[in-house]
């Protein structure tokens, strides 16, 4: 899983063609046989790449499903978005389409390629699948959740014990974190960090820290598009905190020259106390250490309503505007959320399906079960970095963390850079601003 989960990180590189296709895709288009016949559906999906076994699950489910004949196709990582948008523009998108969260599918919503699901799927099923706030737009919801990607801070319990810390009570507040780091350091291990050379650590840091000062995810979008100001101390506090960790010498020394996954491996190998990781790694890492990898939410410094909320990103499925019989497609999505199918999902992939009614008694590993109970079942928020325009992601989200960790800028300077980049985005993309502003309304309303 360690290796196969990596493709998820490269999604940013894949948005590629999406916006480009908006205008001209109609000229291309993929031929698609007799998809128009009733009860004969196409489903394009992705995920085998990060979740081995998913393909088998899909094939089995389709074989089992009698109400319609569903033809599944596993997509290449690079074309998940562009292939769908091209087909949709040409009027022959598949009935059911795999969708990454946030901006990765919202563009298709704005282009009117996807159907709202509120009127198609039973409300309780839709809610239980946790499509997350990032799927809300214009009062409707555009995905059902398929499988979750819990994101959290991990720590090595063995190292905690050695440092005289309670391995079952990780730090909850910022001050407790500083104390813990101090103790870890005096016990001879590097307290906190990972690898930031390829940039994803920067992204994940924002995922965990920025919401701490926010009252809603809509506030984040307002920041990214420059309607709110990163120069406001409240909004760059998280970078000041990162700089504090740096100046206190709590970050691992080779952090700047290591990449994300080798950095997490340091925690697993007992060379680093605390790091950032993702749920799909936990089964393997927990097994490798004999259950000595703990999980926690990022210790709290902020005062926003979202502080201390666990983060769960969710991959999902949607129904295209081209679907001839949307009700049939919706019935298939509901079928995938049925208790038997959730169980089959677990058995095929050894990973959790996204549904709060999933019977978690099948989970053997205590850490994985605990993670599901505390992340999947309790109130959670989704990954705020999925709301960023690509330009902000590349120019601000990644560089700020890297430069703070390298000691070359302060938290305030990171805020300045972010504010400047947000303003630049607005200058460069005047035609996109309204879509984002409309999205803010959905993201700011209570669920």
């Amino acid at each position, binding site marked *: 899983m360690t290796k196969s989960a990596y493709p998820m990180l490269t999604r940013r590189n894949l948005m590629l063609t999406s916006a480009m296709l908006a205008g*001209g895709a109609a*000229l*291309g288009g993929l031929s698609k046989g007799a998809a128009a016949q009733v009860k004969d559906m196409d489903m394009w999906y992705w995920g085998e790449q990060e979740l081995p076994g998913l393909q088998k699950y899909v094939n089995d489910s389709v074989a089992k499903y009698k109400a319609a004949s569903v033809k599944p196709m596993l997509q290449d990582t690079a074309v998940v978005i*562009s292939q769908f948008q091209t087909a949709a523009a040409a009027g022959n998108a598949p009935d059911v389409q795999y969708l990454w969260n946030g901006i990765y599918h919202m563009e298709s919503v704005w282009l009117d390629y996807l159907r709202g699901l509120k009127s198609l799927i039973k409300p309780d099923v839709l809610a239980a699948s946790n499509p997350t706030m990032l799927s809300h737009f214009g009062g409707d919801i555009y995905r059902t959740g398929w499988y979750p990607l819990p994101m959290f801070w991990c720590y090595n319990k063995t190292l905690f014990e050695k440092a005289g810390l309670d391995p079952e009570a990780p730090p909850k507040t910022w001050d407790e974190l500083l104390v813990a780091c101090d103790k870890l350091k005096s016990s001879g291990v590097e307290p906190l960090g990972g690898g930031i050379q390829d940039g994803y650590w920067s992204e994940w840091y924002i995922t965990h820290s920025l919401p701490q000062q926010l009252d809603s995810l809509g506030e984040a979008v307002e920041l990214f598009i420059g309607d709110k100001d990163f120069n406001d101390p409240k909004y760059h506090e998280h970078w000041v905190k990162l700089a504090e960790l740096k100046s206190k010498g709590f970050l691992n020394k080779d952090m700047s020259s290591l*990449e994300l*996954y*080798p950095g997490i491996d340091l925690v697993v190998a007992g060379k680093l106390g605390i790091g950032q990781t993702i749920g799909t790694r936990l089964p393997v890492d927990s097994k490798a250490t004999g259950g000595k990898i703990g999980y926690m939410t990022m210790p709290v410094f902020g005062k926003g309503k979202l502080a201390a909320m666990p983060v769960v990103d969710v991959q999902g499925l949607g129904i295209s505007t081209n679907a001839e019989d949307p009700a049939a497609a919706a019935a298939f999505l509901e079928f995938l959320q049925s208790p038997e199918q959730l169980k089959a999902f677990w058995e095929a992939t050894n990973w959790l399906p996204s549904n709060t009614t999933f019977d978690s008694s099948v989970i053997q590993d205590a850490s994985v079960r605990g993670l599901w109970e505390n992340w999947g079942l309790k109130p959670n928020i989704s990954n705020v970095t999925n709301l960023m325009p690509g330009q902000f992601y590349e120019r601000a989200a990644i560089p700020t963390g890297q430069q703070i960790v390298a000691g070359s800028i302060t938290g305030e300077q990171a805020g300045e850079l972010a504010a400047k980049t947000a303003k630049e985005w607005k200058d460069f993309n005047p035609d996109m601003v309204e879509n984002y502003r409309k999205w803010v309304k959905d993201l700011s309303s209570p669920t």
Partner: protein
Amino acid sequence: MRTPLQPSNVAKQLVLLFAAFLALVPTIYMVITALKSDEEYAIDKLGFPHSPVLENFRSVLVDSPFLYWMLNSGILVAGAVMLSTAISVLGAYAIATMQFRGRDTLLAVSTSLMAVPPVVMIVPLFVLYTRLNMVSTYSGAILIYAGLITPFSVYLLVTFFRTVPRELYEAAHIDGAGQFTILMKVVLPLSLPALVTLIVVNSLYVWNDLLIAIIFMQDDAKRTLMAGISVFSGRYNNQVPLTMAGMVIASAPMFILYVLFQKQFIRGLMSGAIK
């Protein structure tokens, strides 16, 4: 005759030895690291492996589609080099041996295109290919590569064709041979060394390219070796010996060709050093 300032042969040897060492350092590091286990590399990053392991090579070949990537690169190299060579031979032959309007301009423009950086061309081509659904197609990428290497091919071939004695053309012409027959039967056989040079330099260029590969061959199934390497090194970035085994395998084809055909390579590089 010797003055104290004269560098001795020993000094010359030392300088060259040092240069040769520097030139080989990455290769040496790559090979010895590939033969180490993760554990040994963790302890000793510099020395030779105590008990060399081949496990890294095995897992690279089993777990990563290196051979498949190479096949993709091979298809692009073969397609682009053949297409470009055919087009350049025809064009260069006309430029070198025939009189026509615009000839000198054509040669001057073509030659100056040699120095235009590929990055300048990608935006419109990418937009066009997106519209025509040609992103991630072999033919699309082959066309771009063929275009990029053609200015050099034309330049080299024109230079070479001009060195072929005029009498040869004229004799063949008198014998009643048409232009195409002369080209095929007289000029091309004489041009074999130039063609080999072309093929060497152009194949290296296409094989080694990254920019066009990552933009125009985005599908997992169409990935070239160089684009594959960037994915591979990211995915296994925690296992340096494994990564190095991958790099050894990736560099093997060109390296073996270089050792086997060093004469052609060196001649090719020395006359085609512009690329």
